[in-house]
């Protein structure tokens, strides 16, 4: 194919925005485009999304919405035809909620650790390196939430530097999910989430549903220089299968 014709075709694709939501075409440098989470406030803070070729992290206390945010990112990526990997040393991932969040499970590789095994975390880090080195995945999540800090500190000091070096030339974004700050790449995003309040459908009593969780999110390329604060709402409107919520029944008298 002549270069002029190729250029014309690529220009047409750009003009018609056929590639707006899909992964880039073969041969195109995918590092240029960040991975949007689909959560408008978060993407605005990040300048479009999580950067490729970098380790980013999402950390915060339980129920801060860390998992919901990363599921939204995974849903967007897998629905666009790309692959995602989820390394889960504590075996805490729930595929039902992931499917309800929109994730295409057929494009997800889930690696489940043995929660009580002494080497679960080093094995998970090694598997993460394998996924990153393959270059097949647009998103690789290493879920460290719930892993005691002492276990994370026991990892060799060069672990994160090695992983960062590994993906610098890859079109992959790696996301660490944790209870507290662990590590992120020099160009990676650091999203600190703080738990807000749970939102309910009505006053206490029968017929009430959990409507969502409100969280505060601070995004900054460097943790010492937070750039902004943003509030996001994470709503769970369906059951595990994505079906409409089951009507609650009053407790038996």
């Amino acid at each position, binding site marked *: 194919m002549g270069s002029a014709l190729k250029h014309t075709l690529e220009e047409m694709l750009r003009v018609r925005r056929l590639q707006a939501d899909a992964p880039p075409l073969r041969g195109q440098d995918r590092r240029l485009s960040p991975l949007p989470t*689909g*959560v408008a406030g978060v993407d605005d803070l990040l300048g479009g999304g999580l950067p490729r070729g970098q380790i980013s992290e999402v950390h915060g206390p339980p129920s801060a919405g860390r*998992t919901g945010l990363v599921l939204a990112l995974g849903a967007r990526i897998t629905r666009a035809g790309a692959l995602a990997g989820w390394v889960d040393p504590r075996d805490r991932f*729930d595929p039902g909620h992931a499917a309800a969040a929109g994730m295409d499970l*057929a494009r997800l590789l889930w690696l489940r650790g043995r929660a009580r095994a002494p080497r679960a975390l080093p094995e998970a880090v090694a598997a993460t390196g394998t996924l990153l080195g393959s270059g097949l995945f647009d998103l690789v999540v290493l879920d460290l939430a719930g892993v005691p800090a002492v276990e994370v500190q026991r990892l060799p000091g060069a672990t994160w530097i090695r992983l960062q070096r590994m993906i610098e030339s890859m079109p992959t974004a790696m996301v660490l999910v944790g209870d507290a700050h662990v590590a992120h790449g020099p160009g990676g995003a650091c999203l600190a989430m703080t738990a807000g309040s*749970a939102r309910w459908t009505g006053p206490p009593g029968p017929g*009430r549903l959990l409507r969502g969780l409100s969280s505060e999110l601070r995004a900054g390329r460097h943790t010492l220089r937070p750039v902004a604060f943003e509030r996001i709402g*994470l709503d769970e409107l369906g059951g595990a299968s994505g079906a409409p919520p089951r009507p609650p029944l009053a*407790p038996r008298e």
Partner: protein
Amino acid sequence: MYGGLHSPAPLPSPGALVDLAREFTPRVEAFGSTPVLLDLQGLGRAWPSPRALGEALLEAARARRLEPRIVLAGSRIAALLVSQAQEGLTVLAPGEEAAALAPLPLSLLDLDPEREETLRGWGLRTLGDLAALPAAGLAERLGPDAPRLRRLARGEDDAPLVATALPESFACTLELEWPVDGLEPLSFILARVLEPLCSGLAWRGRRAVSLVLELGLVDGSRHRRALHPAAPSADPRTWRTLLLLDLETHPPRDAIQALTLRAEPTPARTVQFSLLDPAQPSPERLAETMARLHEWTSDGRGGTPVLLDTHRPGAFVMGSFTPGPFTGSRLPAGPPRIGLRVFRPPRPAEVSLREGRPAFVSAGSVRGAVLDRAGPWRVSGDWWDVAWSREEWDVALAGGVYRIFRDRLREAWFVEGELD
């Protein structure tokens, strides 16, 4: 120059004549086990005359205990038909084909019965009778392909010889001068064996769907490993990595003295990628990655979760990770959903109730007064099998929002997971 071999007597094996012909030329066309055509072009440099070549063929046949009829002729059809009628060795000089074919019966042309009946009705019995008819008259009466029959009957054949493909065998054996111990030296040897094997596959437009490695060990035993990757490949690097990864987990018990590799071929993928679709993962790289994750996938800890068609909470099975072609699917609209971080198995809890509602939860690190709650959701199922019945609550503690449930069959409370 063409050669025709035909054996009216039963052959010791179906491929006996083809094997004999391949001793002389690789360009052989077989019509079943007999007759067999040989392309003898260029063999004049090895044998001084066609008769000498024919005698060499006859001698080679006798060495194999075969008594075929052998004809050397200038045209394909003459060699083929005359070999079915003439005993022994016949060498036709250029221009003698028509005369040699003339007395042969019409049935050798393998005509369709209706046409043969027509020709017999005209009183034609031999190829010579057909060859003597005018081409224009034949075309008027039998159609446009009738002159071609006449040309065949005169020994004029412009159809090319379609060589029968050699039986495919992709195997390679290497006897080592010195035994090797360990995977690192073996890696170099594997590369040396895999390169020609994979080149052979690629030349034939084939990929290996599986590879069998047999190692002859110093203690006299054999170590056999068979690999069946997710996608066929003819890439020597991929196969070498897969073999080494497999041998890492299943090492031979002694040093290696010899190795044999056998590939099972399959036609190469014919996939025309679209400009408008997302790039798909390379099957070879995917297979290599999954082989590296063998420790995770072998015991069902790695793969793709497949949700089961049931209302039982958390029901899924692990499937193999083989992402299919991208079909395009829309993202569900609306705000992002809450995730659930489950405890496997559910964490047993002590729950204090106040007015029938959870007031305090204690389950290890998940502990505290219930600040707010929603529920209960009562769900049950599988009464015909392993029944389950539970009462779910979403409770807000000081340390997070959790989903707890009471197992109504066991009358026990559990924390299912943390809503996050």
